[in-house]
């Protein structure tokens, strides 16, 4: 069951067009707990990743301080990601409408959205981003634990450390790639997206354009075009 269906979705505002609640306060809180902790992990993680980025550690209080906090903030991030999973896993299942929409991904990239079939609350790109961050997070937290407790891993278990350094880097790179696209789309590309995850609301026109099936579901309206 979607967590949004239990809440009022339309809210009348004087002097304003109809607005729809897209993200509840709890959802926004989870998102920003994950987002802000991820940014910290990105900055400090890049510092440990390459000498060319080591100066970034100074932004986080220097190398030893960054090294001390990185795993703890990592835990906070993983808890937030897991919380997201409990909140959104139903909404994040790929549907037949998503598969149809994915065939028109080129139209989406070229901003020819009029050619796109209607979809529900999230598009397949958002869903894939979610699952990538979820499974990437599991890989990062497991390998990160081995790197964190490096001193407690006995010599005979050293393969655990050898695999952890590689897994942690690969998983981090994959999430960074997804993160770049996510931030770009959420801020610069899809106008209205950033406001929705900050204030929680979108316009009805926005909802109709991007997530028509979700719009119809939450407003109980038939599609005006059909």
């Amino acid at each position, binding site marked *: 069951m979607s967590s949004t269906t239990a809440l009022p979705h339309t809210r009348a505002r004087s002097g304003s067009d109809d607005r729809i609640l897209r993200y509840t306060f709890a959802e926004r809180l989870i998102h920003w707990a994950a987002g802000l902790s991820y940014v910290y992990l990105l900055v400090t993680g890049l510092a440990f990743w390459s000498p060319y980025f080591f100066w970034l550690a100074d932004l986080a209080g220097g190398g*030893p301080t960054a*090294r001390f906090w990185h795993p703890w903030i990592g835990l906070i991030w993983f808890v937030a990601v897991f919380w997201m999973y409990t909140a959104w896993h139903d909404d994040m299942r790929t549907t037949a409408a998503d598969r149809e929409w994915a065939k028109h991904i080129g139209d989406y990239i070229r901003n020819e959205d009029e050619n796109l079939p209607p979809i529900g609350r999230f598009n397949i790109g958002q869903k894939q981003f979610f699952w990538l961050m979820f499974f990437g997070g599991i890989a990062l937290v497991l390998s990160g634990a081995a790197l964190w407790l*490096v001193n407690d891993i006995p010599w005979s278990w050293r393969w655990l450390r*050898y695999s952890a350094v590689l897994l942690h880097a690969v998983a981090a790179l994959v999430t960074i790639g997804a993160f*770049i696209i996510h931030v*770009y789309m959420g801020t610069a590309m899809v106008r209205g997206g950033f406001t929705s995850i900050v204030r929680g609301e979108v316009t009805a026109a926005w909802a109709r354009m991007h997530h028509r099936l979700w719009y119809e579901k939450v407003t109980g309206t038939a599609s005006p075009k059909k």
Partner: protein
Amino acid sequence: MSQATLRVQKISGHAGPIPGEGMQREEQVCKLVDTTTCIGCKACEIACQEWNDLPFATTTFDNTYQTMPQTAWNFWNLIKFNEHEKEDGSMMLLMRKDQCMHCADPGCLRACPSDGAIVQYTNGIVDFQQDHCIGCGYCITGCPFNIPKFNPTTKKVYKCTLCSDRVSNGLEPACIKACPTGCLHFGTKDDMKVLAEKRATQLREHYGFENAGVYDPPGVSGTGVIYVLHDVTAPESYGGLPANPSIPWTVRLWKTPLKWLGNFAMLGGLVGVTLHYLRFGPKTVPDDEAEKRP
């Protein structure tokens, strides 16, 4: 510091050229440990503790003469004992002085992300600079000899310095000075190799140790500590001396090809989204949709 920098030939986590690289004559120093004349007196252990002002370490009894199972952050020089059973059923008590090997290609230095936390001097000594150590423990993962040890209190990693402070002042390392049997030697790498080969030949030709030889593993491009072993084909029996040590392949992959692949991929991502914005621009709700407002 400037003196030290001039003598450096490799720096961990360092972007750009090495200041002072190639400035001095590259004369590699080397410790030679002849395990065949070691009597296990542990004078080298004590000399190491004393010279480096290390606190007393708690010993752990494990049914042998060994002081503790492995080196520790405050115990850098450990004689490893092994009651080795030969093929003919007779026993041999093997003793090996375990410490940092000062690899020519150091896995700790390669794995270290912190600029200048690990350096290799032109004389081959690999030295940890705790002032720059961030305590990540990557060196522990990079080392094929299980040498760097983490101090949970200071959150720094420590190991044998090959008495770089003594060597830079023309003295031999403290362990060498303390050895009563002369099984420990110190000098240039070339001289030590000649001496080691001479002793190995003697062991083969006059003492019946047919497999006697010199341990100077090529997997790490040779080491600054070399051993003469009675049986160079079975180094594992000398308290777990690895037969073919090398930097773990995952560490190599992570630190060189993956790092560049990753950096280019991240740059590619940023360039990609920028190009998308320039070519297609933002995705806005069209006016005809907005006009449908009630």
